[in-house]
């Protein structure tokens, strides 16, 4: 959605005159900050619907297999999941601070904050990998014989873990995309294409990152916390 200013199709300001001789500025597609913002918000809406459909599926099966879902949830690692939640919340903070710095003209500070966000995102992925490999050792992973029909697990547990790997997996995929976007953003900042005067790309990537952490804020309680009571009382 960003565009180069040196292109041949540069915006030439235009005025439309009404019958009373009053002048009205014609909005061009070039450099339309509000338009780019609106476009990205709409794109975020599609992400919400995509995850919304999965949450709907999840809650449908939760109502069908209530007790089994709680049992399955109690088997997840709340410490690692909780650490990841904190890591992601801090990364949302660094991302937001970076945008504030960019707006106030502190490009160097903004870049530092983006690097911090990338680092936190990598930590998140590392913890996630650790968690999944622990699950794997305990026989909880897609494709294992324990996860097949008749492999010793109830319907509710199978569905819970199926959705768990699907949703945390797709969320992790969004984190990876986010890291890619941030690296691209740094490249564009370095080449001067993103600057305090023209920072819509930074704005939109920050918006994306906010949504990614927001999805996690719903994923975490739904998967990890529903069984928390079960874990305490055995």
């Amino acid at each position, binding site marked *: 959605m960003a565009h180069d200013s040196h292109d041949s199709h540069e915006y030439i300001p235009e005025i439309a005159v009404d019958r009373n001789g009053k002048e009205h500025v014609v909005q061009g597609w070039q450099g339309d900050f509000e338009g780019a913002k609106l476009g990205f918000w709409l794109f975020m809406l599609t992400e919400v619907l995509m995850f919304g459909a999965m949450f709907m599926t999840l809650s449908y099966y939760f109502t069908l297999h209530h007790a089994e879902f709680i049992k399955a949830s109690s088997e997840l690692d709340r410490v690692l999941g909780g650490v990841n939640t904190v890591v992601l919340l801090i990364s949302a903070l660094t991302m937001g601070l970076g945008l504030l710095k960019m707006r106030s003209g502190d490009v160097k500070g903004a870049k530092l904050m983006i690097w911090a966000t990338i680092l936190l995102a990598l930590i998140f992925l590392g913890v996630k990998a650790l968690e999944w490999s622990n699950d794997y050792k305990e026989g909880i992973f897609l494709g294992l014989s324990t996860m097949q*029909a008749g492999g010793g697990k109830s319907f509710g547990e199978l569905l819970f873990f199926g959705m768990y790997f699907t949703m945390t997996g797709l969320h992790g995929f969004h984190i990876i995309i986010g890291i890619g976007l941030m690296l691209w953003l740094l490249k564009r900042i370095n080449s001067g294409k993103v600057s305090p005067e023209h920072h819509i790309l930074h704005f939109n990537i920050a918006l994306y990152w906010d949504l990614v952490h927001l999805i996690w804020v719903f994923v975490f309680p739904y998967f990890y916390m529903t069984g928390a009571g079960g874990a305490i009382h055995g």
Partner: protein
Amino acid sequence: MSKSYFDETHCAFGHPKSTFMQWMLTIDHKRIGIMYAVVMFTFFFVAVAAALTMRFELYAPGQQFIEAHVFNQAFTLHGVIMIFLFIIPGIPAVFGNIVMPLMIGAKDVSFPRLNWFTFWLYILGCIIALSSLFNFNIADGKLVFNFADTGWTFYAPYSLNTDTNVVTTLVAAFILGMASILTGLNFLVTIHRLRAPGMDFFKMPLFVWGIYATAWIQLLATPVVGITLVLALLEKYFGIGIFDPAKGGDPVLFQHLFWIYSHPAVYLMILPAFGIMSEIIPAFSRREIFGYRTIALSSASIAGIGYLVWGHHLFTSGMSDVAKTIFSFLTFFVAIPTGIKFYDWIATMYKGKIVLATPMLWALGTIITFAIGGLSGVTIAMIGSDIHLQDTYYTIAHFHYAMLGGVVFLFFAGIHYWFPLVFGKMYNETKAKAAFYILFVGFNLLWFPMFIAGYLGMPRRYFDYLPEFQIYHQISFWGAIIFVIGLVFMFYTLIQGIRKGKPSGVNPWNATTLEWHLPSSPPPLENHTKVPYVDFRPYEYHHGQPVVKFDENMKRID
């Protein structure tokens, strides 16, 4: 002669010298629209060929030319191409791109590069969708295709168990869905941001309203089917269990998630088509459209209500009676705004100076065919009759009367209407009208017998049938032959028009909307040289003449 958009263009990157690369990299909305049209109609004919193959096979009971499983692949191929490659991108991708920015006085869409990217995403989806067609082998001297045989709906659990190549088709449908989302997003922002000064929402042409309502459906419904297809893929290859009854999963859930998108999708197809109708009727009646606001708002309410009716596809799949009743009731509701539109169009023609040019003929023909398609839809919205008619030829006839006789007929109407705008030339009207009559007769001969056959119990998607249904299949067959002849003749006429047509001038139809007030024909690269201030309604006629006139600087002079 002034330069048109055929002579120069803006590119996504670089400044290529060759004409070919200039087309491949173009970000001009008009060129992108034309490329969509070329690709889409190429695939359209592939799907027509698949359908014709089925008609040949069904000419008599028993096996004729192809084997049963090839027949299953043929209807899947027909459905996948027609739905995902042709009619879903359909009118928005072609006329939404070419005409919508012109109608609102914009230089391009809001994100021209995204538009370029979207087009290539669409091409990628097409390639993946059809790749498995070429994945065939020869066993026992027979061709064995690996194309999906699930039907375009991919119902679980069969789609999860079949050995054919469902994966490419699912991935392709997902990618095409993304392209559709991005198109809708681009149009929504364009309509919100780039309208000419003074043009508020109720001064927009009604086609723009149709595109606007459609764009919301593209944006809000497509992600749901996208994730459903991803879940089906994960189910097939990783066994996540949610559609697999062996693991407690629910196959009916797949149907729900699928139709949450795929039912609004039919409104996504028809709303821009209704928009074309709303352009053509006033232009060729030389009369201001009757009930502008009701047509505009009925588009919005069809989009809204259409979101809540998906359950009527599941009346026989296992759903509570309460849910069935609610879905049936809501489905009836969609007929109300649709009916409002029909009455408005007819009221527009009343006391108008009707000009029976080719686009108007198509529009009038559609009023008949879509009325049949729409009203037969109401009959199967009733739970009782639907139990009898579900999965029969009756439903197939209804669907094709609504989609082919509604969307595609109006698409053809739009092609004939905006042809002089796009190419600056005019096709041979006599031949084009003859093509309409051939297609209209062929269409009704092809589809109407299916209402009767379906009512008598002929099930859809069957390779074989009882001898008593033969007469209906044979009438359909001859209808199909006439229809295909008409199609070929129509496209021949249009192509001759592009090659040898006489210059049409800027406004050959005496129409009022902004796309007919361009400085030259075909339009220049950046559309209107000057953007007008819009303080008029889109269809103002007085005594059969357009009211609003502009000088060369787009200032009103009336």
